[in-house]
């Protein structure tokens, strides 16, 4: 989910950059030097996970996993996603420099939102509740991202309205997929290493 260079209007670019700068500043404040290696290794893990091609009908998609990333990293999601996107921009030329702010915000803001909305509740003792919330977390993180992306386009120009609407709709299957994957993944983490989800709370 990247917006290419040259698409967004200057006000949207500036707003995206400013919001991301604030988020990153917040994330860096909450991440002292000792935590950098941990955040970085997990960032690398999420980066690798986002390269996995997941079949979806006749085609396949890449996972976004920003909901899960938010649960694990909390506010550090901002610097983590910024670094991830900068790497993608330099390694694969996805996204770019001027859109880095907007693209980061599109993915990181929902991640942090998920951290606040679901951070504690997904660790619920009741497995049904935990699974449902995990699904909702994965689903809504992508939904929020798609909506933010659409908003960026529509604020750039009315003429993008149609394209933006289609973009959100096209992401619907991805949202279900992400919900499922995050639910399964969270079940795994809760069983195997619940400390991983505690990282955020210790950091918060």
């Amino acid at each position: 989910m990247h917006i290419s260079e040259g698409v967004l209007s200057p006000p949207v670019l500036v707003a995206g950059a400013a919001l991301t700068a604030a988020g990153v500043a917040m994330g860096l404040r909450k991440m002292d030097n000792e935590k950098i290696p941990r955040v970085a290794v997990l960032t690398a893990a999420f980066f690798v996970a986002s390269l996995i091609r997941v079949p979806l009908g006749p085609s396949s998609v890449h996972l976004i996993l920003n909901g899960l990333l938010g649960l694990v990293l909390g506010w550090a999601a901002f610097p983590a996603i910024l670094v991830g996107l900068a790497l993608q921009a330099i390694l694969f030329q996805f996204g770019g420099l001027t859109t880095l702010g907007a693209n980061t915000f599109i993915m990181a803001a929902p991640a942090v939102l998920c951290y606040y909305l679901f951070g504690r509740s997904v660790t619920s003792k009741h497995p049904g509740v935990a699974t449902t919330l995990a699904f909702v977390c994965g689903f809504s993180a992508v939904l929020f991202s798609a909506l933010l992306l659409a908003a960026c386009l529509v604020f750039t120009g009315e003429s993008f309205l149609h394209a933006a609407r289609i973009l959100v709709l096209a992401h619907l299957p991805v949202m279900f997929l992400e919900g499922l994957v995050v639910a399964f993944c969270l079940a795994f983490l809760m069983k195997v290493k619940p400390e991983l989800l505690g990282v955020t709370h210790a950091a918060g």
Partner: protein
Amino acid sequence: MHIDNFASGDSLLHRLDPRVKIIAAMFFSVIVAVADRPLCLAAAICFSLALLLIARLSIREVLLRLLAVNAFIFFLWLFLPFTYGGEKLFSLGPLTATREGIIYVFQITVKSNAIVVALIALLGTTPIITLGHALGHLRVPSKLIHLLFFTVRYLQVLHLEYDRLRAAMRIRAFRPGTNLHTYRSLAYLIGMLLVKSFDRAERIRKAMLCRGFHGEFYLLSHFELERIDLVMFLIMMVVVGGMASLQWIILK
């Protein structure tokens, strides 16, 4: 996982001070991203192509990259010509394409590709770690730089770990498809990857303690601006300044 694909080379651009390249790339990207006048955009494309030639990169490789980058642009071509108001050009069933709409998407296409090509030629030609050091000198917060360094450092390590787990799945006849079994298995794979990363981070922490780490990181790299760096910097700034004046001053 290939990192620093375009960084091996010995062209003028490869040798240029990374700080110069970063600043030039920044100014260029910003100007082009907000520009909309044909002359300015034409100049931008020429500048990008010139950089590409100076960097002597494999054209094939660059085109392959551009193909992937243009997926989003292609998507816009499906919509914008028909939703941008203006003078009717042709109709496709109920849809009417406008002249202005086509010009608008064309503009976006040019801008996007000009920026990406310049980024490949300027930033792609520097190893990512060197870029990090340069950003450190350009006053990007050091926490962010170290986060970048650690992430790059462990990207391959984790990718190899992923490859091994994936091979373990393959030899047990795993074939991905659109079904719950696939999603569950891939989710477990991701979970295992995260758990292993978490454990590795703990071992790294211990290794750092053993070497006396007490919360401070240091950046060791230093760059020397040579005459050629200054000359190139001036040239690029003049070009970018020229583009800006084509956009905002000349022929207003």
